[in-house]
Every structure is written in C-alpha cells, then in structure tokens.
C-alpha cells in the first residue's frame, strides 16, 4: 500500500504520505499511525472506518492540523501543513477547513446564528448573505437562529455545526463521528445533508465513523486497522461495509 490511493483526473483536497504518529515512549509506545499514505479527492464524500484503536480519529486529527505528526507529510490543497507552525496551522483551520465534531460542537454562550458565523468572524470575513440564507433554509434552522445551544435538540445542534462548517466554504470539511450522539432519524438528516453538500454544492467531506450505515452515505470508504491502511470500498453499501469490517476482524 505504498502507492497513493487516488482517482485519476480529480484534484486532491488532502493527502497523507507515509504518516507516522506515536503515542507514549519506550515500552509503552503505541504506533497509532504506522506509515499511512492516502489521498482524498476534492468534491467527494469519503468515510474513514476501522475498529476502535485503528487510528482513524488520529488520522483525521492529523489531516486537519489539530495534532502533530512524528513522521511523513500531510498536504491540504497545495500546502504541506506538517511544515507549518501553530499560528499558521490555526489560520489554516480558520480559513480553509471546516469541522463537525461528535458532540460539544457549539459555544453555549452564543446563539445558533452567532455559532454559525463564528469562524468567519474569527477570520474577519464578511458572511455571504445569500449563501448563509441558502444553508440555513436547507438545514431548516431559520426559526432556530436566535436560540442558544441548550435550547436546541441534539439533531438541531449538529445541523448548526454543519451550517458553521459550510458557511465559510472551506476546502475540506472534517466530520468526526457526526452522528455518534444522535438518534437514527436525526443522524440520517445530518448525513443526507453532508452528502447533498458534496453532490450539489461541490464540498469535500472527510468523515470518521464506526457506523456502517453512516459510511454507506459516502462515495468511498477508506479502511484502517492497527494504524495501517487496510483497503477501500467505492460506492459503499451498508452490507459491503459490514463485510469489509468483518474481514478486518472488527
């Protein structure tokens, strides 16, 4: 698996090359990522899957510039982010990357609208009013804009998080178990929306999940086991994902 797994003719939104991440030292050292090379195409919805401890979350954190690496290189667009310092990494996250986390996505002190626009404000950018309206309407958040997170349901909170990620039109949106805390209906809504944002709005989404149903919404599933790449599935279905995971011994 040393060659880049890529599709001919598409632009790469993010890529890792021979990525190594070690936790701990000496005897207790764990190689969370052990030479992972993978590329993610722009305008596609990719899911990263694997059993617990396979390194999928670590891979995403490194790709997004949230964590440092111990070896290898990561590119977001044309930028090699493994060379950036903390300040530039912060700027990169602010200007070029969007996030949807599993939980605790929103600041409790801000209203839904303020949460959505937070990233733009941090960057000092003016929100595109039309784009903002489109997103808010698509996500059905129009009558929830003045509410604070504690006044929103879990599904609504996740939709606000999605809106925040989208409103800045980032190069990549990273989603870390975005449906992990949701009931299946709310989860389906969020996944539908992520897929639609890729299909209709041309977004790039990279999602970490352990749920085969969630993974089936993606265009492609990248499988990880023991810190190494363990295969991939194109146009996945729930069944094909479950099968692949079973083979991984999950």
């Amino acid at each position, binding site marked *: 698996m040393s060659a880049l797994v890529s599709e001919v003719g598409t632009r790469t939104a993010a890529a890792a090359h021979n990525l190594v991440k070690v936790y701990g030292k000496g005897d207790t050292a764990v190689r969370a990522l052990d030479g992972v090379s993978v590329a993610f195409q722009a305008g596609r919805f990719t899911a990263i899957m694997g059993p617990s401890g396979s390194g999928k979350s670590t891979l995403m954190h490194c790709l997004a510039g949230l964590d440092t690496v111990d070896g290898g290189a990561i590119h977001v667009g044309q930028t090699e982010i493994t060379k950036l310092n*903390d*300040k530039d990494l912060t*700027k990169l*996250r602010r200007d070029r990357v969007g996030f949807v986390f599993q939980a605790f996505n929103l*600041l*409790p*002190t801000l209203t839904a609208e303020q949460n959505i626009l937070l990233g733009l404000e*941090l960057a000092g950018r003016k929100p595109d009013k039309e784009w903002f309206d489109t997103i808010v309407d698509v996500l059905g958040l129009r009558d929830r804009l003045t509410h604070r997170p504690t006044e929103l349901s879990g599904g609504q909170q996740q939709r606000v998080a999605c809106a925040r990620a989208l409103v800045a039109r980032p190069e990549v949106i990273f989603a870390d178990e975005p449906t992990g805390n949701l009931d299946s209906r709310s989860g389906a809504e969020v996944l539908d929306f992520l897929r639609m944002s890729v299909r209709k709005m041309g977004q790039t989404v990279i999602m970490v999940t352990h749920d085969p149903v969630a993974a089936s919404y993606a265009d492609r599933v990248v499988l990880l086991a023991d810190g190494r790449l363990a295969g991939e599935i194109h146009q996945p279905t729930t069944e094909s994902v479950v099968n692949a995971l079973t083979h991984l011994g999950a």
Partner: protein
Amino acid sequence: MLKTILAGLRARTARLVLSSIAIALGVAFVTGTLVLGDAVGEQTRDNFARSARNVDAAVHTAENSPNREDGIPADFLQKIRNTPGVEGADSREFGSAALLSGEGKARNALVQPLPTTEKLRDFNLKDGKFPVKADEAAIDVKTAQIAKLKVGDKLKLLDKDNAEHAFTIVGTYQQGASSISMSGSDHVVVSPEGLRTVIPDQRVYEIVAVAKAGVTQQQLVADITKAIGPGYQVQTGEELTQATLAQVGDAAGEIKTFLLAFAAISLVVAGMVIYNTFTILVAQRTKELALLRCVGANRSQVFRSVLAEALFMGLAASVLGLLGGIGVSAGLQTFISTFGGPSGGDDNPIRLPISWVTIAAGFGVGVVVTVLSAVLPARRATRVAPVAALRSQPDSSDDVARTGKVRIAVATLIALVGGAAVYFGLQQEKEEPAMFITGGATMVLLLAVLLLGPLYVPLVNRLFGKALRGVPAKLASANAGRNPKRTAATTAALMIGVTIVAMVAVVAGSGRATMNEQVDKRFPADYAVKSNVYSQPLSPKFTEDLAKVRNVAQIAPELRAFGESPKLEYADVTGYPTEALGSLVRPDLAAGTLTGLKDGEIAMREKEAKTAGVAIGSTVPISGKDLKVVALIKDNSYGTGIVTLKTAESILKEPVKGYQNVLVKLAPGTDITQARADLERFIATSPVAVLDSAAETKAELNSQIDQILLFIWALVGLALIIALFGIANTLTLSVLERTRESALLRALGLTRGQLRQMLVVESILMALIGAVVGVLLGAGFGWLLVEAISNSEFTISFSIPFGQIGIMLGLAVVAAVIAAALPARRAARNSVVAGMAEA
C-alpha cells in the same frame, strides 16, 4: 469511603491547592485585621494610658472638695510612702514656664518632675539618661525636633519673674498620648529639686503608688485611704487606666471600631471568595459524584465525602492563613510606622497579640465558611439523578437558574430597612450618631445591592460588552455573562472593597476640600502673628510697630475676653477693631450685619443666641454689661460672639497686657516672599512672636488627612488582593471547566494569543464590573455620609477625588491582567485534541 476521599484529594491537587490558597488568604485577611486591631488597641492602651502604667493606686482630690484648687497637700506624699504595702510613690504635677533655647526665641513649655520610683515613670527613655541633678533636664523627642535641641545642649527656663534657670539636657524621652502631652507646647522633665527652683509651689494633682509584691490593688487603696483620711479620691490602677482611657475617649476607640468594622467586612469578603471557589469545585465534580452514586455509593455517603473534604481543606488552609495573617499584620505595622499614620508616628514596636477571638475567627472563617460553602453545592450534586448528572454540561440551564424571587424579595426588604436607616441618620443633628447610623445603613444597602448582583451584573456586563470590538473580546463578554450568579459572586468581593475605599476617599476628599475652604474663609488675612507663650501676649507696642512694617496694609489684633452671663454657661467673646470686620474677619452670617459694629454691640453665635433666648435687637448681659445683639453668626470659632476691641477690654477683668493673635493683611500685589522676609525680620525682635500663614495651616491639615487615607489604602490593598485572587480562582476553575470549549475554539481557528486575550478581557470585565459598581456605590454612600455629617453649623461640601478613584480603577485593571495571566497560559498550552477528548 475515606480512601476515596484521600484519593480524590491527591488526584485533584492542583485545583485543591488553588481553593486552599483562596481559603488561606481569606483567613489571613481576617486574622491579620484582628491582630492589627488588637495591636492598635494594645498600643493605644500603652500610649494613652501610659500615665497609669504600673500604677496600683492613685490619689486625687475629690470631685466636690473645697480644697480642689489647692491640690493635694505636700505632706501626703510622705504619708503615702510610709503606708505599709507601698513600695514607692510619686507626685504628679506640671507647671508652665517659658523655655529659651539656642535661637533665643521663647517657647511655652510644660515642666514635669521626674518620678523617683522607676516603675512610675510615664516616659520611655529614648536617648541619654533621665535627669538626676538639679541642673539636669530631659526633653521629649518632639520638643528636641522642633526646638532643634539635642543631648548635651543647654536650655533655660524662665520663672514667673523672668529669671533664667539654666539646665543641661542629658536625655530625650517619648511620652504617651495624654491631654498634657498633646497640648502642643514643648515638654521638659527635670528632677523634683530642679522643678522647685523654677516653680517653687506647684500644685500636686495626683499621687501614684506601686504596691509591694503580694499586696493587691484593693488592699493598697484601703491602706492609703486609711493613711490620708477622707476628702480624697483613691482609685486602683485598673480604675485609673479605665478612667484615663475613657477621658482620652473616642480617638482610640474609633480606630478600633474602624478596624473591627473592617474585620467584619473582610469576613464577608473572604467568605464570598471561599463560597464561590467551592461552588465551582463541586459543580465540576458533579459527574464524578454521579459516577460514585452509579457504582453504589448512597446519597449521604457522597454528601459526607464532600463535607469531609471541605473540612480537611478548611483546617489545613486555616492554619496557613492564621500564620499568614500574623505576617500580614506585622507587614502592615511596618508599613504604617514607615510612612506614618494616625497610630504610627514614633517608632512603635511591632506587636502581635494573638487572642482566642482571633484564632476562633480565623478557624471559624476557614472551616465553617468552607464547610457551609460545600453544603449547598453538595446537596445540589446529590439531589440530581446520577445518570442525569453524568450527562450534564457546565452552565446548563439548571446551574444558571434565574435569580430567585425569594432573593429579590429579601433584598428589597433589606434595601427598605437600609433606606429607612439612612433617612433616620440624615435627620440626626449631632455629627457622631448621624455618621454611625448613616454609615451602618449604607452597609445594609450594600448587602442588598450584593444580593441583587445576579440581576444587574449581566446588564453591566452587556453594557461594557457593547463597547468591545473583536471576536475574542466579544466571546469574553459572553463568558462573563454566562453564569450571572458566579460572576456576581466573583465581583462581589472586589465590589465591597472598592465601595469602602471610594466612600472613604469621597468623605475624606470632601472633608479636605471643606477644610481648605474653611481655612480660606477663616484666614482672609495673609498672615497671623501669634504669641508662642500663652502667659506673654504680644504687646500693644509690638502690634503698633507691626502695622508699620513695609507692605502691611492692615492689621487686626484679636482679644479674647472671658466674661460671665446668667443666661449662658460660657461667655467668652472675641474683640476686633471695627474696621477689620468684614475684611480681615469674615464669619458666616446667619442674620443682621456685621460691618460698622459699635461698642456695646455683639454679633452673637446663632446657637448661643437660641440658648440664651435672644434675637437681633434684644440684649444679652455679659459681665454686667447689656450687649445689643446686631447680628447672628454661624461660626463657632469666635466663642459667644464678636465684639469691638473696646467692649472686649471692658469685659476683661484686668488691664490689657497684649494680644494673643494679630491678623495681618498685605497691600494688594505685594511680592509674598519679600513680604514674608520683612515680617520675619520684624518678628525676630520679639522673643515670643511667631508667624502663621494660611498656606501652612492648610498644608498641615491636609497632611493629617493624607495620613488617615494612607492607613486606609493599606487595608484596602489587602481587600483588593484577596478580591483579585477570587477572580483568578474563578477564572482558573472556569478554564478547567471550559477545556473542551477552548479546544473547540482553537479548532475553529482561534489563535493561542486570541485565547489568552479572551481570558484577560474576561478578567478585566469582571474586575471592572466590581470596581465600577463599587465606585458608584461608594460615591453615593460617601455623599450620604457627607450629608449626614453636615449640620446647620458645619457644612461639608461634597467633592469626588477623581484622581484617586481613577488610580483605583487603573489598579483594578492591572490586577485583573495579572489575575488572568496564569489561567490564560494554562488554557493556551492545552492541546486541541486532548481538550476535545476531555469528558
């Protein structure tokens, strides 16, 4: 369960250390104040009752005795010395003589004999030795300073017939504060024989005695009474001490009251900081406590574990705080004696009296407040269903419950009581009750305001937040507003401190402005020439020559005459030349006109006119003359009233020897330095005349007020420190609590610097809310106090010392930045991924 508690204490060392410091600081604050109060009390006792030091029995002439004028007969001293049980006895007496030092200018001096019994000396030797021979003398340190005399110098005392008696200065001493030592003149101690040479027949006003070992004070009193017979008052030493303290009265008591009030305030402030810390601490542990419940601990076990932990922390921190408080008190005393204060001054030793009250108060605050602060949150923590608690988020709607109706009702009730008390205080005509009632009432109002904190703190925060620009600052404002109760409690400590300072600053500032106005009004003259020695007034000849000095436009000799009136208790009038009235003498007129006052007329003090039942147009009998009242004045500095010089002379029993005081007005446009030099040259011709100017009086008064302010600033510094520690504590715990939030913000693109900035702004916001509300309250309360103290005769004009208040606000901001430094660093250092993972 004990294991769990200990393990818990170990695991949360960092947080517990922080909270312990908060408790320790609170305890240190309280004990420090109490120790300082006791030290001041002890010092006061020593200072003001030094004349009663070691005294076991004291003899005075009885209150209504006919021989009171003559004093105690001379042979009594020997009688008492011969009484069984008496180890030693000495007479107390003092006479007045003019003192001539090197410069040749005579000064008024009080001469006292040195007690032969060492224990009965109410002077502390500073330098050299006490006089032994008849031609040796010791002077007190202030006299040495003012008269520029030192050990080895010669001084001369003039007796009644102006004969000179030479003494060699062999030592300097420090005396306690008493009505004698406070009387501004110079002080000389000579041997009893030396005194007889200058003043042969001085009246003895007191004989003091020390008992032999094993003889009680009561027994000694009984023995002495038997020896000297009836007609004299014999007191035990303890009674004398109490009587002396009661006499010098309130000066000492006021400082103690003030310190006690401050200790009470410190108690509240410390309690608030501790309560706040513990509330946050337990709130953060809700999940852990819930987990304990989930694995089978029952409600009371969890509750007890929280209390046990609080008890342990409270005890440990109290011990630290107690020691710290003693250090604080020592530091404050050093500070005061270095910079001088009302109780400082001459080098007093540092005293650290530790009473049981202090220890009890320290532990009371440390342990009881900590445990009480733990009870409420612990009850809350154990009341929720365990699973719900496991899921809970910080600052969810339950924590940030709306301000309760009960709280509002209670606060309103307290405010009404306070308001009524203020109204009552303002109605008081006498200054002291007005001040105490109004002062107490403002504290009640402060309590109401503090209770309502959660209501207006968010409003003030929003107001400040509107002025802020930039995302970090806006986030900071939102953070400060997220939990109104917590923010209110955090800012409350600072608010109390600032309110008190602002109040004192306003009152003192107003007092200073008023005093300066008064000095200006009372001294329309440019200079006053006074006699230094009471028994030797400025002669009429000297006065005439003074008028001829270059650039002197006008002079007004002042003549005080003590007359008698059947309608008044005192009838002392002040005489001036008619042409000086309205120009050099300008009292505050209530009615009538003063200019052109004729002989036989009086401008009477309004209050005394009321007492005597006279009005303008009627007459008042003084020393056999019927003076016609033509004006009423408000000032109390002219005695019963102002009359012409001639009228004053006619009231005087003896012929005029001269004047105590002559007012001098310079010709307009005169060069002050030139004129002053001329005057000084002229005055040098008299042995007793001194120059006094309004400017100097003003400076002296101001320096007195400044000393009081300095003392208050020192105490307030303490309040500020603890209050800011409260902010730092809240912020640190908030940072811990908001780890995930900070991580999220960092993930979304907030730089480390911006994160730090956010916390610093949050800290400044909290400090400013406390400080600004405090300043407003303090200024308001100060105004109330000023109004209360003012009465019809004495009006203080309200003025705000903007400079001092500005400095205070500046200090609050600086301290807030310091308070935020550590928490901000900690927050910024956290890794984003680790923060997100935090449960």
